[in-house]
């Protein structure tokens, strides 16, 4: 792929002696446990291949011991890979000389650590300027740059404090600032919010997303928290026992888990945050306000099995009519009844990226929810029942079942 900023192919890490023999055993299909019993070597990462695109947040999710921390340390050569290729801007980290590795770390790739790893004897400004200092930037200009970045993360007033004066959340902001100040395009974040308490963690996640909108860094983010992965990741890789078991977007992973392990993981996540209106909406059937009679509208609803229809006035959404009300108005002896009389103009609208959890309220009205684009045009509708079905996972399960049946049916 052209815009891959970081490409890993068939990377292995084996801790212990006689790596070539272990690699051979792995290629024969021996499991991590068998290899440990047979050779005493630990397989940290096996056959990891993925690409991180420019400007995306690529999350690596896995439980402790799954090899995710080893994997991220292989990306900047802190842990040299046993086999495989790790390309950053065309240079292979696995083959780089110590000097080349230092240059890549200075210029292209920064890291943010779970326990902050701030230097306790330096002020925040000195800490933030560390990458520049290493690179030989003169004191004045690196101090200036450090203050700018501290401003960005909201810590400018503490520039001359020591890290021990700050709370955990603030310390990690400094860690983030230190990574940003170095000016590299790639940020490796090793469980950066893992040591923070839940409220601060949430705040930091939001702040990271905000910063990312302007900075557009290429981020590899390690976490053991699936909700965090789903919230932050443009794409997510799930690791188990040193292997990457699935790579995909949040929606792909939740709707189509690659195996039972992933399925068990996603079973109790908050689906409301993963799916958006876009995922549950359907093509709208609309009627025109002026051209459609009440009788026609009723017939359309009966045929389509819909209980409400959106009514358009030209390009504009005029409102929504429900079967119940139209049927009632048709009972009315007056022959001049039009759609206008039964029109509900106070209908719920959302945009396509609204998360399902924010649709609960709108779904409560019982009316189909209008999904509009930035120019207020109707692009889709969401049936309230679909919102609930998706939240409970029934729709997904049904879909998966249908796919399976289809697949089973095909060979015959």
């Amino acid at each position, binding site marked *: 792929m052209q815009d891959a900023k970081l490409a890993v192919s068939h990377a292995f890490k084996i801790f212990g002696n006689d790596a070539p023999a272990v690699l051979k055993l792995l290629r024969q299909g021996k499991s991590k446990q068998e290899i440990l019993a047979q050779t005493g070597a630990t397989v940290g990462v096996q056959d990891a291949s993925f690409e991180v695109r420019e400007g995306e947040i690529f999350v690596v999710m896995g439980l402790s011991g799954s090899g995710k921390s080893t994997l991220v340390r292989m990306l*900047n050569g*802190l842990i040299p890979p046993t086999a495989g290729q790790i390309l950053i801007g065309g240079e292979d980290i696995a083959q780089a000389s110590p000097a080349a*590795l*230092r*240059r*890549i*770390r*200075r210029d292209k790739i*920064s*890291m943010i*650590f779970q*326990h902050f*790893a701030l*230097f*306790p*004897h330096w002020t925040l400004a000195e800490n933030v300027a*560390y*990458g520049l*200092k*290493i*690179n030989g930037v003169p004191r004045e200009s690196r101090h200036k740059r450090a203050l700018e970045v501290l401003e960005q993360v909201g810590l400018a007033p503490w520039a*001359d*404090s*020591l890290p*021990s004066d700050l709370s955990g959340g603030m310390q990690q902001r400094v860690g983030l600032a*230190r990574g940003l100040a*170095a000016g590299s395009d790639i940020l*490796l974040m090793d469980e950066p919010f893992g040591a923070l308490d839940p409220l601060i963690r949430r705040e930091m996640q939001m702040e990271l997303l905000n910063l990312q909108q302007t900075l557009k860094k290429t981020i590899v983010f390690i976490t053991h928290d699936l909700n965090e992965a789903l919230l932050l990741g443009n794409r997510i890789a799930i690791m188990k026992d040193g292997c990457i078991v699935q790579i995909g977007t949040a929606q792909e992973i939740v709707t189509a888990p690659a195996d039972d392990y992933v399925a068990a993981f996603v079973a109790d996540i908050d689906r409301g945050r993963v799916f958006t209106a876009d995922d549950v909406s359907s093509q709208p059937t609309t009627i025109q306000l002026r051209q459609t009679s009440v009788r026609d509208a009723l017939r359309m609803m009966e045929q389509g099995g819909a209980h409400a229809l959106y009514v358009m006035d030209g390009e504009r959404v005029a409102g929504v009519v429900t079967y119940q009300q139209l049927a009632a108005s048709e009972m009315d002896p007056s022959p001049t009844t039009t759609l206008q009389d039964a029109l509900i103009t106070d209908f719920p609208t959302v945009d396509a990226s609204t998360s399902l959890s924010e649709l609960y309220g709108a779904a409560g009205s019982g009316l189909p929810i209008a999904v509009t684009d930035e120019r207020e045009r109707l692009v889709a509708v969401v049936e309230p029942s679909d919102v609930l079905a998706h939240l409970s996972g029934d729709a997904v399960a049904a879909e998966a079942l249908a796919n399976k049946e289809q697949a089973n049916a095909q060979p015959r």
Partner: protein
Amino acid sequence: MLSPADIVTLPFDDWVNAFVRGWLVPNFRPFFRAAQVPITSVLGWLEAAFLAVPMLVTTALFALAAWKTAGRGMAIFTILGFAFVDMIGLWDDTMTTLAMILTAVFFCAVIGIPAGILAARSNLAWRIMRPVLDVMQTIPSFVYLVPIVMLFGVGMTPGIIATIVFALPPIVRLTNLGIRNVRADLIEAAEAFGSTGWQMLWDLQLPLAMRTIMAGLNQTLMMALSMVVIAALIGGGGLGLVVNTGLGRMDVGGATAGGVGIVVLAIVLDRITQGLAERSGVRGASLRQTLAGFFRPRATAPALEAEKAG
């Protein structure tokens, strides 16, 4: 009973004699003579300086240092102690001993800190150094007094060399320990930002190990003091000589007077260096900051805070 000695007896003492007298001394005497030149010069300067500066000025400087690092009580003790030493007529001997000790400690630091850094960075170097340090610390000093006299002759400088041999291990060990104990995640962070070995040493390892290194310096200083009397056996002057003379003449009073001088010096130097070590640990200040704080007028924590606020 059968014992190995019935089968083989080893003339170990002859071997050592042959090695030292037959080979080391004839071949390397000029080399060792030349090697003591820097020690002799440093000692000469220090001794001349301490003897030239009037007693009151020296006492005032030490009292000030004690006040800054260890508090008012220690400053008062310094004044009283130094005055007592002067009044019992041992001021010049005390200054000679001080010059000897500081020379020994200076060379211990010059040799020991780099050796400790090397030991911390290379497991191989540490594996080699460790048994050597063990021997240096445990071998009775009388054992190496004889070869030292053979190689370097008699006098103050050989006495200092014996002191260095005895007092070197703690500074090497504690420098090694301090650097190895720098948090691994900080080292990893420095590496992740692409720092070189030297950058890591200056930016992280030395400042963060400073407290432990200072503790090592304090230990080295104390061990050097305890060698004063033994060094006097091979020509080291000062208070050690006073004690030895007292011993030789069964002069309890003279020996005690020399001993009191050593104790006063030991207490003052110990408290001052301990204070320095503690300061270098407070909030992880660097050596530069520690020394700057040391020379600043009454610069304690509140002053630093005020400076920050302003």
